[in-house]
């Protein structure tokens, strides 16, 4: 792999940029791999990366039915934070956030991690109490968050209207080392590093069936032929239910569309991420100047990747109330992704009833922030059969009643 550096840019500038190679090689499937990962999104590629980096397993294929990072990895609003309430969540998301800090150096790929700070507004007394509780919990968990007064909120984000008619801002939960990163670059950077370790990333290769020998998985059928594997990792977000069906087990997951939209680019006006969970809207400004806005999930199952229009209307209404200066802003694009929701709004990182199959799913509306940590824990689980970070997230928790309830702690927005 050619390293990217300032020197490389200078060298290529002198020879008309003819020396840049492919970031990852276009691979064709081999007959057999030690590990096959289904899904070349951020989580799948991060899993492959840590399998190689931490556990020395490099005979790995990552299969993708569409193009690399074209699912929820390319559709999220790029927010990274770890201010969760429950201990297992805080541990996993904080591990992930800390891995983002050094990701560009680790991958030799600029993922544009920007620890600009995430502010979650408290707009009801209930929310104030909830965030105070989270701030105290985070202190014990070693996650750096702080509860701010309404005046401090206004100082950090002057374009906020803190005296709104319906829901005045009463305070906010502030995580200064949270922020954003370039979502595509995360997938591309991992793909480049995986390819460099000799792994095969196979795009346009849809899994159509899972081959079992009794209770053990032995391979997959794909649109590009049959592939044998020692272990199979399913990391396919919204389509987890489909892969589980092919594998012969059930999942406590439902797939719903989640929407986002961006505005036309404007001059810099907001250098943090603001989430307003009571009125339900959240917003940040991209480096191009677009306001990046996250909407709500549909209330019913679908695989349509667009979502219902009235959610856009509700989100925009909430944001205009919170940020009056954006009232005449034009929106450029809207899109949807299919998110996999669990009953307790926490992910599943788990062995499955089928030997050799492992599943990483259920990230619901907030998977991007977890990309490196999820891969770290899932790779450990796949390589060793046990991971301290993943332990609490096994799928038998629903039978045992040990939920990791983040639906209240995290609000709905991610």
């Amino acid at each position: 792999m050619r390293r990217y550096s300032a020197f490389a840019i200078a060298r290529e500038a002198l020879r008309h940029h003819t020396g840049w190679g492919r970031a990852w090689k276009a691979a064709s499937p081999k007959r057999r791999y030690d590990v096959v990962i289904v899904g070349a999104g951020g989580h799948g590629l991060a899993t492959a990366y840590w399998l190689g980096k931490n556990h020395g397993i490099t005979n790995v294929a990552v299969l993708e039915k569409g193009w690399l990072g074209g699912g929820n990895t390319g559709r999220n609003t790029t927010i990274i934070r770890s201010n969760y309430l429950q201990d297992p969540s805080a541990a996993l998301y904080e591990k992930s956030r800390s891995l983002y800090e050094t990701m560009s150096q680790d991958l030799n790929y600029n993922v544009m991690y920007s620890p600009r700070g995430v502010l979650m507004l408290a707009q009801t007394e209930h929310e104030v109490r909830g965030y105070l509780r989270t701030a105290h919990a985070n202190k014990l968990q070693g996650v750096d968050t702080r509860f701010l007064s309404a005046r401090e909120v206004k100082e950090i984000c002057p374009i906020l209207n803190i005296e709104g008619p319906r829901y005045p801002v009463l305070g906010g939960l502030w995580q200064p080392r949270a922020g954003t990163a370039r979502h595509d670059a995360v997938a591309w950077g991992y793909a480049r590093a995986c390819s460099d370790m000799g792994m095969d990333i196979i795009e346009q290769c849809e899994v159509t069936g899972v081959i079992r020998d009794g209770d053990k998985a032995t391979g997959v059928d794909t649109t590009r032929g049959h592939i044998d594997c020692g272990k199979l990792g399913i990391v396919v977000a919204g389509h987890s239910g489909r892969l589980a069906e092919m594998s012969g087990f059930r999942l406590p997951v439902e797939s719903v569309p989640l929407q986002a939209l961006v505005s036309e680019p404007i001059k810099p006006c907001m250098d943090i991420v603001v989430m307003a969970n009571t009125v339900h809207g959240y917003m940040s400004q991209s480096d191009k100047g677009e306001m990046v806005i996250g909407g709500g999930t549909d209330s019913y199952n679908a695989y349509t990747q667009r979502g219902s229009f009235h959610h856009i209307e509700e989100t925009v209404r909430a944001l205009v109330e919170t940020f009056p200066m954006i009232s005449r802003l034009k929106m450029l694009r809207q899109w949807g992704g299919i998110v996999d929701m669990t009953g307790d709004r926490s992910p599943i990182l788990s062995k499955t009833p089928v030997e050799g199959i492992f599943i990483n799913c259920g990230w619901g509306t907030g998977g991007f922030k977890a990309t490196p940590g999820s891969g770290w824990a899932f790779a450990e689980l796949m390589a060793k059969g046990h991971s301290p970070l993943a332990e609490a997230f096994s799928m038998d928790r629903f039978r045992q009643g040990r939920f990791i309830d983040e639906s209240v702690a995290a609000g709905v927005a991610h």
Partner: protein
Amino acid sequence: MLILDCPYCGATCDETELTAGGEAHLTRHGPGSEDVDFETYLFMRENPKGPHFERWRHAAGCGKWFHAARHTVTMQVFGTYPAQTVEPPQEILDRISEAHPGWSWRSYGDRT
């Protein structure tokens, strides 16, 4: 925007008049049941990519619960029917079979 006909009052409603109630025809388990039964009842879902049966409430209208059969990819609605039933009407099953030969959902489906 999803549009469904309420089988009780006959109104044609867009989804903002309705409340989604999740998967239909669940088998409910009570006290004394096994953990695995509760897990199935409370958490395990069909989550199909295809025809789906679900519960809806005409919240901004007559207020009653009803069932709908809908495709989760094409959003085609195969029909709505009252909630006072344990299984979907045959005519709706036939309509789905006509549009999607070979479909299946739990014990229902096109077996031809």
